[in-house]
């Protein structure tokens, strides 16, 4: 069995785990260069092209902020996938992805999922799809009761116990 590739957050001492790692440190740990980031964006643009209201991958994250967040989590895996793509035949990003999908579908799916997750984590996409999550929604007084209004539980209660009591 080959030694596992360590994630970028592996080396961080527990007491420092709340602070975000600077991107240059992450890239150094994962052996990634700025050219690699450009390549990732190219692959992203092939997988997620512009379409109507949907921007292409690189336009959804113009400053690379979300890609940076992704690197801090999975830079080691992105680096491994880029290494595989470097040895995959093809004249451009689209051809290489197509070849990867044909030859190593699991690797393709891994890369696709990571890039799709980046894309769907950008502020621009949240705005477009109307995602309002990860915000506080403290229940209003009486809200819990309101969902049960109209005697919703009455028939469950009327039916009575449904469990078996075994002999001991």
């Amino acid at each position: 069995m080959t030694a596992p590739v360590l994630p970028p957050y592996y080396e961080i001492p527990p007491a420092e785990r709340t602070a975000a790692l600077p991107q240059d440190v992450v890239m150094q740990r994962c052996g990634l260069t700025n050219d690699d980031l450009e390549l990732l964006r190219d692959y992203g643009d092939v997988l997620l092209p512009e379409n109507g209201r949907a921007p292409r991958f690189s336009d959804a994250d113009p400053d690379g902020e979300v890609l940076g967040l992704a690197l801090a989590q999975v830079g080691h895996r992105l680096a491994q996938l880029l290494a595989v793509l470097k040895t995959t035949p093809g004249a451009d990003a689209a051809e290489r992805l197509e070849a990867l999908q044909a030859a190593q579908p699991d690797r393709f799916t891994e890369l696709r999922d990571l890039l799709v997750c980046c894309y769907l984590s950008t502020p621009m996409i949240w705005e477009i799809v109307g995602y309002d999550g990860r915000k506080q929604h403290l229940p209003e007084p009486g809200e819990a009761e309101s969902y049960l209004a109209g005697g919703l539980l009455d028939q469950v209660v009327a039916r009575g116990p449904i469990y078996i009591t075994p002999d001991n």
Partner: protein
Amino acid sequence: MVLWRLRQQPCPRSAFYQGGWRVTIKRGNYEATEWQSKPGDRADVLVIGGGASGATVSKFLAHEGLHVVCLEQGTWVNTAEYTGNRREYELSMFGRWHKNPNARGLPEDYPLEVSNCDIDPVMYNAVGGGSVHFGGMWPRIMPSDFRLKSTFGIGDDWPISWEELWPFYDLNDQDWGCAAMVGDPAFPIMGTPPMPAHPINDYGRRFAQGMNKLGWHWWPAPNAIANQNHHGLVPCVRYGTCESGCPNGSKASADITHWPYAIRDGATLVTRARVREITIDSQGLASGAIFLDVEGNEHQVEADVVVMAANGIGTARLLLMSTSNRFPQGLANSSGLVGRRLMLNPCPMVIGVYDEPLHSWMGPAGQNVHSFEFYETDESRGHALGGSWMTMPTGGPYAAAEILAQDGDDIHGPGLLDKVGEIMGYSQLVAMVTADLPHEDNRVELDSTLTDSSGLPAPRVTYKQDANSDALIDWHIDKVGEALYASGASRVINFPAMPDQPGHLLGTARMGNDPGTSVVDKYGRSHDVPNLYVVDGSVFVTSCAISPTGTITALALRTAHHLLQNAIDQLTPD
């Protein structure tokens, strides 16, 4: 020989004690406590593993005045490390907050060899253990679970009855901040939980309406998630991201609900302490443990009683690693059952998609509505055992894309956003926890090559899902689909296995009355080593079909009560 000291002195260098005996309870997060001891130091109770069950035992026994030391390989997790209210939340589920330790790969995790496993076991290794990562679902098992063999002729009976466990459930609910509605007709009467049930939300109401149409049982589901200030927890704000740690501090996890209290009462919790062996004395009694600190230095802790709480995989691994001339097959293993009979509660799920908005990223997640309609065995279904159901939010944009991928959609290429928009907020998830039969070949062993970051052998886990589980899962998926359509869903999407779930690690040191066919007695005490106890999910006799932590910790609390009540008769090493 009977030796039982009530604590007179503070524990050896507990950082907490620098301020004196009683200090205000700080919520979660303490500095690492280094282990320093003098010759002759001996704990009353040494607990291995600071997760849900270890914390339960430690809190209770420390409060009762015993000198408790706990060794935990993980660290404190700071609430600010949780990503559930941040942009990178869904990305972090691929990295730092991955549920699978093999993918997450933190130094405190140990790798699992799973090439022979149909379901990847998941866990979290930290102060609080799996309770940091869990969803807080907090159901009980049903009375028939204790008598499966005599009621249905399946599996085995437990050596205890439901009546013996029920009071400990009630006590435990207070500690774990259970929010529930009394009166659920699926269970005998329960004590008053500390908090009322959470809102079932629009999607839970939808599901309940469907269940009513079919005349099937449902109830607002219990969660160990606060909706009031309780034991250091604060009211839930429904981020719906419970399973990667609660950034609000509302979900019960033992680092908030238990450890601060245990530490206040004198327990010493040593973090980054990886136990490699339980030691024994010349009489064959457990005498303590040897652990490795983060630099790889070895330390020995002596104790009168050792309590294993390292979960259904970690405990078996450690017992198997603790070989000696006296116990060549591993400690407490004269039955040969340590590590065997692993049960994982296979968890399928079905997504129901609706035409109207249901805000179905809102938590808790956690569970909203549960059903025990098809929990008991019914021979007419063509399989043994059953399952419980629970509704949950479906999550954010990437979770919607994952659902589409499972449904065979290409989630790249044009049109993704329209498809995501159809699922996100317009769907709900029904998870099923199904019972699985105990098979001796489903087991935990020691791998001969793979090791953890301390060089200790990794567990090799074998789990083959049997034909009964396959049939049961198919049957339940169909029934959940029926319920979702009855509730107005326009489409359902089936997942025969929920990704990276369920983290229910059960059965590998089972309870029983017969030392030839069980590892521990009905109080969790080893038949072979009378001062060695097991309190985690290993002791389960059969898997039951629920999220198990409420039951694991109620059993642990029962063991702790028993230990205290019988302290005077407890055999201890010289």
